[in-house]
């Protein structure tokens, strides 16, 4: 089992140089290597997940699979990996979205094919490492590992403004990482202060008791580090430039998976490590979430560039994740989980479609499109479907995510939830506006264009099928992640209670809701 965890990370990383070399054998060899590596990873993760739910019956024990090897004992650094429901779901999402990204680049990427797919595999290996590492030093290593290949993907294969965009992406994420690094080191040193030896280990640091002053600052640092990645305002401005300029495959990885590493960080580290400061930071974080939902939705309505529109809608959807993560109820956390998966699927679909449009018409400006329904009916139908997913149509997965967050958070912050609900109206405005400007109306560009290829169409249909399946049967995700979320809430409550006198109304509402929700 322990070996399998390392395999999850090593398969993509070891396949990366092979993909690079594969270019010599045939044009498509690198693509097939990526697909093969990710498929194996997917099946492996699925198998581990199956073990997971079987082992869940035994109850306690945080990790189902765990691998622990000493690395630099002097500094308390170890090669520590752990797998639970949260990571299983996200690794499955990573492998799947990676496959979609590869298919999306099938015709778009024609130069340096081997190198491109090598970078894709390295980035994905880093992401999977992020989802597995429970030693904070190791976590940070993977956190940085995924960044550099992403930077290269944008700067080498991006569109006209790629230098500006990639530089902005690098600066923002690197600045966020530095804040995170300072906080991680500070935690390790605080552990030394308390016990005499430094430690980067998750379990050790969870047991650390901090003064509320210290906890507040460290939590803010952990929050900022992850908010840049999520992203949430005011750290979001790298995203529209990056998403628009990156090649389609990279955009799909960025939006579908990399954004989720921020969300994962919030759930895995920010929330459990600093329960002392949760009550102070939670309203701020939720407020940022609501601002993100509304502000990005307004800007999405204002865009004429289709990729920037989807990019802003993506920020808006991420606001629900931030909102739910700090709501302090299990239901909202489950909503966050659902939203991560749903957004990963819907946004991958939308960017694939936007990329297909760009490839056909050499423009992202919707003012130059219009009336394309009759030219490319498959493209149009699929865009309609994903626009519906994005506007939160019930029966699709995004609806479950958003609504569980809203249902779960209403007790904590009713006013914020009412404001966030206005995002639903705006989502309708930008999603339908996008349809109107591209596929409906009079035809602007009379060039004929080929419709979606069978492979792309099939991929999109499959994602659509997943959206419907999870929209009508969200249990598939929710049962896997339920134990994790249960534990998270309990841990936060217990720690918060032992340290603070529950005086604030926010805290008391946490207790009420958790009693109501756990049988």
């Amino acid at each position, binding site marked *: 089992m322990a070996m399998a965890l390392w395999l999850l990370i090593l398969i993509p990383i070891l396949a990366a140089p092979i993909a690079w070399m594969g270019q010599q054998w045939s044009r498509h060899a690198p693509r097939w290597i990526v697909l093969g590596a990710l498929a194996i990873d997917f099946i492996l993760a699925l198998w581990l997940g199956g073990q997971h739910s079987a082992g869940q019956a035994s109850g306690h024990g945080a990790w189902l699979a765990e691998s622990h090897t000493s690395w630099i004992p002097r500094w308390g650094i170890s090669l520590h990996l752990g797998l639970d429901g949260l990571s299983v779901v996200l690794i499955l999402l990573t492998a799947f979205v990676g496959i979609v990204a590869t298919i999306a680049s099938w015709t778009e990427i024609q130069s340096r094919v081997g190198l491109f797919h090598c970078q894709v595999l390295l980035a994905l290996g880093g992401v999977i490492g992020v989802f597995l590492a429970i030693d904070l030093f190791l976590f940070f290593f993977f956190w940085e590992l995924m960044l550099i290949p992403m930077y290269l993907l944008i700067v080498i294969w991006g569109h006209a403004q790629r230098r500006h965009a990639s530089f902005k992406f690098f600066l923002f994420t690197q600045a966020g990482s530095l804040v995170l690094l300072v906080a991680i080191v500070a935690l390790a040193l605080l552990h030394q202060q308390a016990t005499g030896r430094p430690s980067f280990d998750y379990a050790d640091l969870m047991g650390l008791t901090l003064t509320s002053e210290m906890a507040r600052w460290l939590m803010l640092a952990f929050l900022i580090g992850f908010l840049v990645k999520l992203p949430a305002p005011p750290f979001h401005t790298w995203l529209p430039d990056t998403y628009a300029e990156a090649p389609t495959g990279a955009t799909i990885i960025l939006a579908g998976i990399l954004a989720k590493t921020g969300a994962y960080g919030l759930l895995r580290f920010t929330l459990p490590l600093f329960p002392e400061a949760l009550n102070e930071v939670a309203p701020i974080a939720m407020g940022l979430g609501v601002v993100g939902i509304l502000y990005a939705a307004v800007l999405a309505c204002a865009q004429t560039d289709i990729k920037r529109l989807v990019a802003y809608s993506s920020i808006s959807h991420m606001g629900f994740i931030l909102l739910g993560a700090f709501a302090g109820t*299990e239901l909202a956390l489950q909503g966050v989980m659902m939203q991560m998966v749903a957004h990963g699927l819907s946004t991958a679909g939308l960017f694939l479609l936007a990329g297909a449009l760009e490839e056909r018409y050499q423009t992202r400006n919707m003012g130059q499109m219009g009336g394309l329904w009759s030219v490319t009916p498959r493209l149009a139908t699929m865009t309609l479907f994903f626009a519906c997913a994005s506007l939160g149509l019930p029966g699709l997965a995004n609806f479950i995510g958003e609504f569980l967050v809203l249902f779960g958070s209403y007790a904590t912050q009713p006013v914020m939830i009412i404001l966030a609900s206005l995002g639903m109206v705006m989502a309708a405005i930008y999603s339908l506006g996008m349809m109107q400007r591209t596929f409906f109306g009079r035809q602007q560009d009379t060039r004929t264009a080929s419709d979606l290829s069978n492979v792309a169409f099939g991929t999109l249909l499959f994602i659509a099928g997943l959206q419907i399946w999870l929209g009508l049967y969200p*249990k598939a995700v929710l049962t896997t992640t339920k134990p994790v979320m249960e534990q998270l809430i309990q841990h936060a409550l217990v720690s918060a209670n032992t340290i603070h006198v529950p005086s604030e109304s926010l805290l008391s509402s946490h207790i009420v809701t958790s009693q109501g929700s756990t049988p």
Partner: protein
Amino acid sequence: MLSLLWLIPVLPLAGFLLLALCGGRLSRQHIAWVGCGSVGAAAVTTALVAIDFFSLFPAREFYQQTSWNWIDTSGMTVGISWYLDALSLLMVAVITGIGFLIHLYSAEYMAHDDGYARFFAYMNLFVAAMLTLVLADNLLLLYLGWEGVGLCSYLLIGFWYREPEYGTAAQKAFIVTRIGDTALAIGLFILFTQFKTLSIQQVQSLATGAWPVGSNLAMIVAVLFLIGAVGKSAQLPLQVWLPDAMAGPTPVSALIHAATMVTAGVYLIARMHHLFELAPMVQEGIAVLGLVTLLLAATSALVQQDIKRVLAYSTMSQIGYMFLALGVGAWPAALFHFLTHSCFKALLFLAAGSVIHSLHHEQNIFKMGGLRRHLPWTFWTFLIGAAAMSGVPLITSGFYSKDWILWSVWSSPLSHRWIWFGALLGAMLTGLYSFRLIFRVFFGEVRTQPTGESGLAMRLPLVVLAFLALTVGFLEMPHTLGNVTLFSHYLSHALPTTALLPGMDESSEAREQLAVTVAALLGIGLAALLFLPGSLFGARGTDQSTTHPSMTLLQGGWGFDRLYDRLFVQPWFAITRNSSDMVDRGYEWLAVCAESCHGWLSHTQTGQVRWYAASIAVGTLMLLGLFAM
């Protein structure tokens, strides 16, 4: 057979999937078979279920079925569950029955359209969503149907997507109703937070236990549900989307914007009647909203030039009657008017479609005339529809339902006299605008030459609906006339019966009915006087050019569009005109700062040794000075 309940919404859904996935490969005939067949099969299933339901009715008042657990986590349990009682069975029967007739009609009406498969796919999806809405056991599933019908309405209004105005109308419809939907969603959040369940029955029984009548929370939730209902049902103040929604093909207007979807608000309020009973002030508000809408819409209907817009305003007006009835606690009367209205309004739209079809898509009534002889089937069925809508006494269904509503308004303890007078005025106006249409379109000289009567697939639904428009009224007849109470008796198992003020006896009912009869006939007579060619004022037939300001105001639906444009649409466009991100400006400023600092500092790099030496010396002195301090 009751266990087949789940099949009713699933059949049209299957039709949709079939058409969506391989509609391109099917022949037109097969598309029509799938499209009509799936709804027809749903209607047959409904009949089978109904037979079983009635075999144990009223001993067993409802039937519940769970297909699977939709959400079951962390204290939230919501099923894909169905709930059949007298109310939902009535709705299902209307949706599948009338839905089937309209599908049949569409098979011929849309026969030459490019998007034949797309049309039937959307229509089937609509029927599936609408059935989900009315059969839902819990509010979340109801919300699924609620949003689903909204989506289909959007898709079908913008069906002819090449026209940008149609697209605008479609977006307007979706966005305006979504404002209502969002209010409804917030209502759901509150109910769930309070009661930890979304089951319609449980929520209401818990609410009745926990909230005293008139309590704040009850009022808030009722208002939120009401906003949802007025959005869908095109009532004030969210009514602006319906007239524009006529951009869709006429069968769509008949099915969605007349017979079924726009009455979803009525269904929602009736379904949640326990909740509204806890908020009497809100209920009174429903009555007033209904009255105001019915009068505004009726006056607007009087001056429209487009035949479909007349019918759109008339739909708003008739739904206003339903809201009025709900508001005064006449629950079964509202549903009875829903039943008769969906028959005669679907009939009117389909007949209007037949007119439009034969006139090469001409919709302006001032370019019509004299069609009585050319389109006899259409004329007679349209006449029956108009008569039913006006409430021609004794022989039409509209009379019985409208009379019931007016009698309830007169006799209910929840009502006021002035509301009754307003509604009576509305009844007069209904006769006036209905027969204005008849006289303009079917009498006088021929202005556009018609191509002739349409085929059997279009005529058959007209005849069946005309028959229904005449006869469904006999299900419920007042004490003074026959005293048939089949309908109210049936619905009494799902809805509370109407309360009467003391001292309301048969003689006062007869007097009240006389007033209603006179009002309807007065309206029709006035229409003949004003619009029948050859009558007193009928000669001045072409008031097309009238530009009197009051006329423009009425034609534009009392200026709500312009008001909302100023208040919301223009400011929104002003906000979204600028696509750049304010926050990004801050970072850009940072970058500019850094660059200018860099430029400034690079000036010091001169390459002259004495300059460097001097700066080192000055720097050292400054540092020393600092330490000295």
